């Protein structure tokens, strides 16, 4: 069954490389929702996220020949979506990276009892762009700090501080939401 699935994927990939419109539509149907979810985690506005997804699909179809089949095609395509979102943020917004975080503060964070009935998108939407980009790349895309530094043209130290601040901010927002919910129940 897995072999059949792989064969289907390889067939779809070969058809995509031949610029087959039917194969492009199949690939679009398969991955548009997932890609839009990824784009939305970087860009709050749904229309802007959709624009990024459109551009990403066009790039995928155009540059599909450059995919040599060495890795996972879905991962390659997802990376294009992420890069498109990052480019959009860089070109449309001024991003400030705040530096100088006390190392001792980094170790003072303690996970508290968390009730996981929260909306992750709501939390992410409240993060500044710089925090959000680093947090998403590190936590969701599982990039290393070096890869984040290379992608965003920042130092690894800045990447680490942005991640710390992002986590801190997320917790604050989360607990604020929880307090609100408790007050509403009372």
């Amino acid at each position, binding site marked *: 069954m897995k072999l059949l699935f792989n064969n289907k994927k390889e067939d779809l990939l070969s058809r995509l490389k031949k*610029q087959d*419109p039917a194969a*492009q*539509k199949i690939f*679009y149907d398969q991955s*548009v*929702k*997932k890609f*839009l*979810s*990824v784009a*939305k*985690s970087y860009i709050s506005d*749904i*229309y802007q996220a*959709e624009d990024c*997804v*459109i551009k990403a*699909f*066009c790039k995928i*179809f*155009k540059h599909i020949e450059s995919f040599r089949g060495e890795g996972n095609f879905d991962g390659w395509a997802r990376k294009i979506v992420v890069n498109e979102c990052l480019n959009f943020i860089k070109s449309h917004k001024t991003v400030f990276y705040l530096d100088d975080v006390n190392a001792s503060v980094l170790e003072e964070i*303690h*996970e508290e*009892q*968390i009730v*996981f009935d*929260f*909306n*992750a*998108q709501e*939390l*992410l939407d409240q993060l500044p762009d710089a925090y959000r980009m680093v*947090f998403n790349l590190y*936590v*969701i895309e599982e990039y290393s700090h070096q890869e984040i530094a290379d992608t965003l043209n920042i130092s690894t130290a800045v990447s680490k501080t942005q991640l710390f601040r992002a*986590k801190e901010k*997320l*917790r604050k927002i*989360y607990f604020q939401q929880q307090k609100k919910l408790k007050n509403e129940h009372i």
Partner: protein
Amino acid sequence: MNTFKNNLEYQIKKQIDEREITPSRDLWSEIEKQTQVVGDTQTKKINWFLVAACLVLMISLGAVLIFNENKSSDIQVAQKETVIKDPVAKPELKNTPEIIQQTQERRKEVENVASTKSEMVSSEINEEKQMLPIIKENSKEIAAQISQIPAEKIIAQADSAKVQVKKKRYVDPSTLLFSVEHKSVIEKSKDGSNVAKVDLNSN
């Protein structure tokens, strides 16, 4: 309590990875439009290259054809001279004894005065005689060549060939007589020019 799975970041990642968002508008039509535009621009580029390549090919082919036509027409005219000799030569073949007889009669009339000219004429006739059998021998091959050559070309070039044959072989009796009668004057003017001054009132 602070396990990885209870971690806030992990929960965010899990939610983002698991969720799917349906587009609010028809993204596919926009993707199709953009990919078609890209495809059109690519084909336009290819078309321009094709047009340029076609132009170069046409020009080079045209040049080659023109040069070849010039060369082949020269060659064909040369061939035609030999080829067309056959139909033209055939009637001459019948007439040659008559010409010989005529020249011989005139020779008798002029007596021995026109001996030099008649020798030239007879030598020409002899040459013709020598050539005619060759044409006869090659007549089959020549006929085959004629059949290969298009009729239009043969008709077009036959006239020019005929004129050349006339120039070579036709001997006008009046000029021959004239040359014999005014031999002395002609001989005097043999200083390389073809112009002879003849006083018509002297006779």
